[in-house]
Each structure stands twice: as C-alpha cells, then as structure tokens.
C-alpha cells in the first residue's frame, strides 16, 4: 500500500530508527511500511495517524478511486 510516511518523517527530521522508537516498532518495520512491503495493522495505522495528526486515509492510499472503475 502506498503511503506518505517517508515524507511525513522527513518533515519531522526523524530517522527511521527515531520513528520506530515513537511507534515502538523496529527500524526494519518502519522501512517495510515506507516501501509498501508491509501494511500495518489497524492499531498501528491509528498510532501513526495520531503521531502525525493526520487521518489514516491521508497517510495511506489503498488505490480505491471512489468506485469509478466498477468497485463498490
């Protein structure tokens, strides 16, 4: 899943390790989320959302385009 985590982190001038500390996950986990190789659980997504003060859908993009391509 695409996301804005790397941009948000850079705006705070945090390293991956520092963000990991804020979220209580490893630096490797932060890297996996940023590169879209791992989708965080809902509790972790909420934690990220609260940390950066932005709604989940502003940070994560699941590719849903509003049902214009036939999706309900």
């Amino acid at each position: 899943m695409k996301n804005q985590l790397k941009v948000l982190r850079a705006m705070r001038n945090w390293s991956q390790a520092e963000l990991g500390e804020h979220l209580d996950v490893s630096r490797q986990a932060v890297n996996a989320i940023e590169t879209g190789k791992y989708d965080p659980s809902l509790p972790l997504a909420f934690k990220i959302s609260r940390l950066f003060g932005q709604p989940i859908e502003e940070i994560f993009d699941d590719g849903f385009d509003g049902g214009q391509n036939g999706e309900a």
Partner: protein
Amino acid sequence: MTDLTEARMEKLEDEGSNGRNFLWITLAGLGIVMTLGAIAGFMGEHQADGGGELSGVGVAVLISFGAIVAGLSYAIWRNVKKLKSNGEPMTKREKLNRNIIVGLGLLGGVMGFVLSTSSIGNADGNGPGSLSAIFSSGPLPLTVVLPFVFIWVVIMPVVAWFWHTRAIDEQEANAYRDGGYYAAYAFLILAPLWWVLWRGDFLPEPDGVAIYLIFSLIWSAVWFWKKYR
C-alpha cells in the same frame, strides 16, 4: 521534500533494509563453522594416518583453509560496519530481540558442540567431534539427555512466549507467521510424499531429523525473506 538539511540528508541515507548484510553475515558465519570443521576433519585424518609433520601439500591446504576463514571474517566485519543505523539507539524491543537471538545462538552453539563431542558409538560411523555427529542417531549419555530435555521442555517455551509477546513487533510477527504457513504446507505435502515414495521403493526410509531440518530451514528462510526483503 525540499530544503533538506545536511543532517536530514544523512538520516535519509541511513535507510533501507539490512537484509543483504545480515544474509552475508549469516552465510559467512556458517562458512567459518564449516571451514573449521573441515580443518578439524583434515587434522583428524592426519592423526589417524600416523601424525607427524605435515607435507607441503598439507601445509598448503591448511593455509588455504586459514585464508578462507580470514576472508569470511573480513566479510562479516565489512557487513557489520555497513549495517544501517549501526550505532543508533535501539528501542527496548529491538534490544531485547537482539539479546534473545544472540543468547539462543550461543546456546545453540554450546548444544551443537556438546552433541558433536558426546555421542557414544556413533551409529552413522562419524567420530565424536565431527560436524555431522550433531545430527547422528548415535546414543547419548544421560548427563547430556537430561539437560537437553530441560532446555527443550522448560527453557524454550518460556523464551518463545517472551520473544513473541515482548521482543518482536508486528512486522516480524507477520513474517514469522508466514514462515510457519510455508513450513507447515511443505511438511503436509513432503512428509507423506516421502513416506509413499519410500513404500514404493523410490527413496530410503523417511528420516525424522531431515524432515525437522527441512521444516526449520523453510520457516527460517521465509521469515528472513519477509522481514528483510
């Protein structure tokens, strides 16, 4: 992402996966263990042939083994230096995770050493001290069996529970779970396949230790891939 300060640039450069480095460190470590085993085997053969001074070829073989160990040690050192975020403070979870992994690795090393040196009358014809004696089916003395049973029945479940609940994060738990799925399916497919092929006289009798090792290897490989890809 404009106007990046130098400090921020440094932090962004310190990104990415450490998977490749850990893979090289692991492979080089295994290479060192196997080369040391080869040196022990070579010297054992030499002693069995009467000992004495090594021939020129023997010295050249030992020097080659030494060069391999030195090269692999250098590879480990280089890859440890290249680890991203090396030296940065780790979270409590990461520290605990690292300590448990290192602790279990050391315990495994000690157990392997004890197994390789204490088997009585090796059933596979491998002498005590050889690497293959670790996985042999030779009898073991009770003084070795009892501590091993204690480790597997008491220590391992406690450490596993602690590791899952306190040390790893959800990404690693996910990688571990996926590894378990792949290993379980491989077991469900390969174990009866081997059994049927044995009954059809195509393969030797199924070997429990080999099945255990294949299961563990698949689980570990998938865990590693999912965690560090």
